[in-house]
C-alpha cells in the first residue's frame, strides 16, 4: 500500500507512524556536467525508520547531503515540518534538529569519546565566552546538565569503558557507535545514518540494528538510513526508497519493494554484496 494521507497510521507490524516530518520534492543535483540526483521526491514520516537503498553511486549519500544542507540542489524543494526550507548552511540545519552520521567515519580524532559526544550537544549549549572563561554559574551548570545527558547516551550505547579514550585509537565498530552517539546527543527530530553498518561483522551489525530500533522506539527519533545489507533493511525499515543512477525507482514497505519488479531487475537481481 502506498501512503497518500498526511495523518498518522499503523503499519502491518503494528507500529504507529506519524504525519510527514520531512519531504523532498523534485530534487535535482548536478556537479558540473554530472547529474548526481535527478528529480527525486519522497517523504519521511515522524517516528518511522526510512531506508534509502540502491547500488553504489546511486546518489544516496548526495541525497543525505542535500537534506542536511551540505549540497544545494539546482532544482527542487525541501519541506521540513510542513514548511518550505529556505536554503541554509549545515550548521543552521543542525539547529533545526537534523543530525547525521557519515559513510566513512567523521569523528574528531583528537578528542576523547566523551568530548566527541559532548560536541553533539553543541546546539543545546549557549553560555557566553566570558561565563565559560570564568567557569562559574551558568557555564558550569550547563556543562554538567549536558554531561548527564551524554552519560546517559554513553550507557545506552554501552561504551562506558572508552569514555576517556581518544577516538582515533578505537576500533572501527566502536568508532561507528561513538559517531551514532554524537548524532544522538543532539536529540534530533530526524536522524540520518549513512551506512551505519558498513564493514561490520554480524554481531556488530546486530548490535547496531538494536541500537537504531531502540533509538527509534525509546526516544521516538525518526530515522532515515542508507544501507546495503538488504537483510538488515528489510528487518528494521518501515518504508524503503530505492535509487538507481540518481533516479527513484521504487518506494514503499519492504514487502512491496521485495515484489517490485523494477527494483529486482535494477538492484536485487544484480548485486549480491
Amino acid at each position, binding site marked *: 500500500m502506498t501512503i497518500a494521507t498526511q495523518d498518522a497510521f499503523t503499519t502491518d507490524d503494528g507500529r504507529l507512524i506519524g504525519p510527514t516530518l520531512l519531504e523532498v520534492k523534485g530534487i535535482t543535483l548536478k*556537479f558540473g556536467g554530472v547529474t548526481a540526483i535527478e528529480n527525486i521526491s519522497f517523504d519521511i514520516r515522524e517516528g518511522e525508520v526510512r531506508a534509502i537503498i540502491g547500488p553504489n553511486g546511486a546518489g544516496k*549519500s548526495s541525497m543525505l*547531503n542535500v537534506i542536511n544542507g*551540505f549540497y544545494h540542489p539546482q532544482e527542487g524543494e525541501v519541506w521540513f515540518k510542513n514548511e518550505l526550507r529556505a536554503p541554509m548552511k549545515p550548521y543552521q540545519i543542525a539547529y533545526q534538529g537534523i543530525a547525521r552520521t*557519515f*559513510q566513512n567515519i567523521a569523528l574528531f580524532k583528537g578528542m576523547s569519546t566523551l568530548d566527541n559526544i559532548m560536541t553533539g550537544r553543541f546546539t543545546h549549549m549557549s553560555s557566553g565566552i566570558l561565563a565559560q572563561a570564568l567557569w562559574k554559574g551558568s557555564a558550569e551548570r550547563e556543562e554538567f546538565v549536558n554531561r548527564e545527558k551524554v552519560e546517559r547516551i554513553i550507557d545506552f550505547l554501552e561504551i562506558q569503558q572508552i569514555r576517556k579514550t581518544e577516538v582515533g585509537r578505537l576500533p572501527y565498530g566502536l568508532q561507528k557507535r561513538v559517531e551514532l552517539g554524537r548524532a544522538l546527543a543532539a536529540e534530533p527530530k530526524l536522524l540520518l545514518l549513512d551506512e551505519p553498518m558498513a564493514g561490520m561483522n554480524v554481531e556488530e551489525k546486530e548490535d547496531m540494528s538494536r541500537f537504531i530500533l531502540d533509538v527509534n522506539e525509546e526516544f521516538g527519533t525518526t530515522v532515515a538510513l542508507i544501507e546495503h545489507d538488504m537483510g538488515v533493511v528489510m528487518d528494521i525499515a518501515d518504508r524503503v526508497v530505492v535509487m538507481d543512477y540518481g533516479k527513484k525507482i521504487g518506494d514503499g514497505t519492504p514487502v512491496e519493494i521485495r515484489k517490485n519488479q523494477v527494483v529486482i531487475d535494477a538492484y536485487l537481481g544484480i548485486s549480491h554484496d
Partner: protein
Amino acid sequence: MILFDPFFWEVFISGLLAGVMYALVALGFVLIFKASGIFNFAQGVLALFAALTLVGFQTGQVPFAHLLEAVFGLHVTHWGDGMPTVLALLLSLFVMIGLAWLIVKIVLRPLVNQEGIILFMATIGLAFVLEGVGDLMWGANVKRLDVGLPEGPSDFLLDHTGMFIEKLEISAAVVAMILVASLMLFSQYTKMGRALRAVADDHQAALSVGISLETIWWVVWSISGLVALVAGVMWGAKSGVQFSLSLIALKALPVLMLGGFTSIPGAIIGGLMIGVGEKMFEFYIGPMIGGATENWFAYMLALLFLLFRPQGLFGEKIIERV
C-alpha cells in the same frame, strides 16, 4: 599614459628579473613539497650554506678556522689560495648532495608519515643547525663572491633604450631560466622525474616505479640543494655572502601562495607576478604612503588573490566531499 613613462618599462623589466630570482627560490620549495609534502623552511638557509661553502672552497678557507683557533689555539685561516671556480662549484654541489643524504637519513626518515606541521618544524630546526654550522665553518663576516659573472649596467641597453639593467641580473635570469627548463625536462622525460611526480600523488605509486621513497627524497633534496646553490650564487654575487642571504626564503613564500605549493609553472609565473607587482607598487604607490612597502606588498597581493581564488593560480577547483 603610464606606458609612456620612461621608467615604466624599466620598472617592469627589473621586476621581471627580480621575479625570476624569486621563482628560483620558490622552485626549491615546490620540488620538496611535491615529492615529500614538506614545507621546507630551511630553503633560504640552504642557499646561504651553499654560497658560504662555495666561497670557502674558492678562496681556500680552512673550515672551522675560528673554532680551531679558540680550542687548539692554532691560527690557520687559509690552506692555500683557493681553487678555480668551476671546481669549487662542483665540490659545493657534492657537499649539498651529501647534506641532502644526511638530512634524509637523520631528520626525515624518523619523521616519515608525520603531519605537515611537524615536518615543517623539523625543517626549522634544520635551518637553525645549518645556520650555526655554516657560520661556525666559514665565519660570520661578509664575503665577496665572484664567479666571473659580468657586472655593472649593460651598455648596450643603456645606449639603445636608456635603461639601466644590471648585466648580473640578466645573466642571473638566464641561468635561472636554463635551470628551470632543465628541471622541467628532467621531471618530464626521465624515469626518476616520473617517479617524483608519482610520489607527489601517492607514495605507493612511486614505489611501484621501483624506486624507494628515501632515494626519491634524497634526489629531491639534492636538486633543491642545487637550486639553493644557484640562488645563493646569484644573490651572493649581488650583495655579498652573509647572513641576510638566508632571508631570501621570505621572498619566495608569497610566490608559493600565488602559484601553489605543488606547481612548478605556478612558481615561475607567481615569481614574475610578485616581482613586477612589488616593484610597480613600490615605485608608483610607495612614495605616496612612505615607501619600503616591498616587505608586505607581495604578501598582501597573494592574500587578496587567494581570497578570490583559494586554489591558487593553477590549482583546480576543490570540491569537498563527505
